């Protein structure tokens, strides 16, 4: 039963990933990535981590992907790759290198990990309990947890600063911005 679910979800995850890379339209890419994230979330559940399953869905599939879709649409960057490639020579090289990396990485993975069935039984009954995770997070990993909070704060401030308008620009750029705004207003 487990194996069947794994095979199906793994296939979905792979298809999603490949389709994301292949899709011409960035909106499609985002949606395929969403599919991939969902599949991986299911895999998390299979691996006894319900809490991660939940935040994978809420944070990744929910917040982050929505943000992506929003920015894609905001910038109108759905199909910018129709223009000819400036470094076309890199395409085959990149594909080849990606394939080689896949082979090498999988070979390394094969060598490094076990094929024997993982330990089970009694221990697994309580493993991955969100309460246990929380206990560890707020005791042993308290400092990293705090630092993560600071990183988020810095990110918020960074985003605000990056998208601040006018103050540090030249007058010309400011007027340009104003025109864009008016155009956008008009479009609405």
């Amino acid at each position, binding site marked *: 039963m487990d194996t069947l679910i794994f095979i199906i979800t793994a296939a979905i995850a792979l298809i999603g990933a490949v389709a994301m890379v292949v899709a011409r339209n960035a909106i499609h890419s985002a949606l395929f990535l969403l599919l991939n994230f969902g599949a991986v979330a299911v895999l998390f559940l299979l691996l006894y981590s319900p809490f991660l399953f939940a935040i994978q869905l809420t944070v990744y599939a929910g917040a982050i992907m929505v943000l992506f879709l929003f920015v894609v649409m905001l910038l109108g960057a759905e199909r910018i790759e129709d223009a000819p490639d400036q470094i076309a020579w*890199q395409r085959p090289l990149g594909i080849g290198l990606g394939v080689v990396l896949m082979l090498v990485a999988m070979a390394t993975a094969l060598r490094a990990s076990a094929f024997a069935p993982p330990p089970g039984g009694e221990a697994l009954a309580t493993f991955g309990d969100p309460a246990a995770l929380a206990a560890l997070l707020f005791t042993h990993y308290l400092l990293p947890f705090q630092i993560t909070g600071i990183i988020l704060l810095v990110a918020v401030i960074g985003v605000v600063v990056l998208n601040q308008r006018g103050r540090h620009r030249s007058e010309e750029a400011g007027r340009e911005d104003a025109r864009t705004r008016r155009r956008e207003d008009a479009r609405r």
Partner: protein
Amino acid sequence: MLTWLIWFIPLLPFVGFLLNLFVIRQERQAGMLASATVVASFVLALVATVLLAGLPEAERRVQSMAWEWIATGSLSVPFAIMFDPLTAVMVLLVTGVGALIHIYSIGYMHGDPRVVRYFAYLNLFVTMMLFLVMANNLLLLFLGWEGVGLCSFLLIGFWFERKEAAAAAVKAFVVNRIGDAAFILAMLAVFSNFGTLNFYGMEINGRWVPGFLERMPEIFGLRFGPDWQPIAIATGISFLLLIGATGKSAQLPLFVWLPDAMAGPTPVSALIHAATMVTAGVYMMARTEQLFAASPATQSWVVWIGTFTAFIAATAAIAQWDIKRVLAYSTVSQLGFMVAACGMGAYAAAIFHLLTHGIFKALLFLGSGSVIHGTHETQDMRKMGGLRTAMPTTFWTYMVGAAALAGVVPLAGFWSKDEILAHAAAYGYWPQLAILFLTSLLTAFYMGRQVALIFYGEQRDNHYHPHESGQTMRVPLIILAIGAIVAGFMNIPTLFSGMPAAHLLTDWLQPVLHEEAGKFNLVVAILATAGAVGMGYLGWWAYTSNAAKVKVGGLDPAYRYTGDIWDGMQEAWYVDLAYNRMVVAPFRSFSATLANVFDKQGIDGMVNGVGRVFTWAATEVRMLQNGYVRTYALVFTMGAVLVLSFMLFVTR
């Protein structure tokens, strides 16, 4: 009292040097000051010698340390001087002859634009020479050794506008380097084998530092026999010292610099290149006599080098036209006598000859300087002749010097040379005795020739009006002439039993050289003096009777008796030429190759090539930074793949 008194002997000329260098600007003051300091040194040296003579014989060595010069590890070199019988006679010679030559220089150098500098150099030379003979360790001796070499270089090249003077200065310096290198090696060998550079033991900062001459018995004496190593050490060290001495004392094969050194002012030739500096090698060999005595192999080298040098230089002296070159080769020849005496173990005789030679050769040089001065810078003897009437003082003093050099009884040269010959006869050095005897005949011949050419016959060149030199030049000549007459009596052999004043010098030097007085050899003495008189007369006669044939560009009257041999003699048997062909010319062409081919194509090519490679590489590598982030990611991924592959295939 002696311990502080002796410091003033070298330091007074040094003060004179400093004053002449930095303060004095006037010719007259410079000459007076320089002479005064050296005269004062001479007086002090006399006082010190008298005080030394007042001590018991066993205690006649005063050592005095100023400070510990070098103290690293087990090497402790004091800046210390000493005063013992050997040093005393050397100091008296250096300051005595030096003082006379300083006074003479006042007259000789009058009117020269750089005369202050001249006296500064001269004072520095006396300082360094005094440090050389007073040093109580090899390193300080070497300081003096190099110091006099430097002064020699500066004074040979004193008239550096003249190309040959500058070249001769460089030649003297370079040739001396060969000997100096050997000297340094000898010092290293002494230190590694004896652990000290001091000649005699002394206390340094409360610690007793032994002297290597005193440690000789414990290194060599106890282990003679089947164990060959001590003899090998002694041979090695003494042979290196011998090479050092051949450089400084102008022996075969390094004598070529001395004749050229005559490009310097004549008083310099007298002081440095006849009386004092060139005898440093002989002094050094006498000082380290125990080392040489321990090695029979080196001793035979020493005696043969000295003998051959004496003979070859004497033959070369016969065929020279330049008044100073005759004396230069004569000096080389007499130095050969001294070295040969050292080789035969007759150190006292060597020092005796050194002293008398210092006096009469200085006299001859100063006399020739007077001739040159009086004939308006004429040095070619073919342009002289008949000067005895115009320059009576010079003539008579010169005659005394020439007779002393030739070995005429009872002048100084006779006694000292006879001492060497008698020693050779007494200890069975027959081949050397024969050659040296022949050399002494040749010596008489070329002195007769020179006197005849300069003072007899008619004046062959009338472009100048010869005149006698001034008071400052005549007085030193007279004093030195008196010296040349009486100096021999300080060490006359026992002519009849119960003679009170015999062998004064040998006895005086006995604590240092440990040498008993030799016996008087009547046969050798009579033969030598008869030969000297005969050959001297022959030389004089041959060149006075043929005076008319002597002219510039013409052949020497003796040429028809000797033929081509004369050409060889004139060129000192082509030693110089051989050096030019074998050392200088290959070196020049090698340098030219380096400069024109290797430097331009090799070095420059390398430098420019590096530049070109980097320019090319930069233009190429620049392209890698194409600005596309994706390309950077590609390269980055390649690295990741490589690392992963490494982990996969190499590490297990």
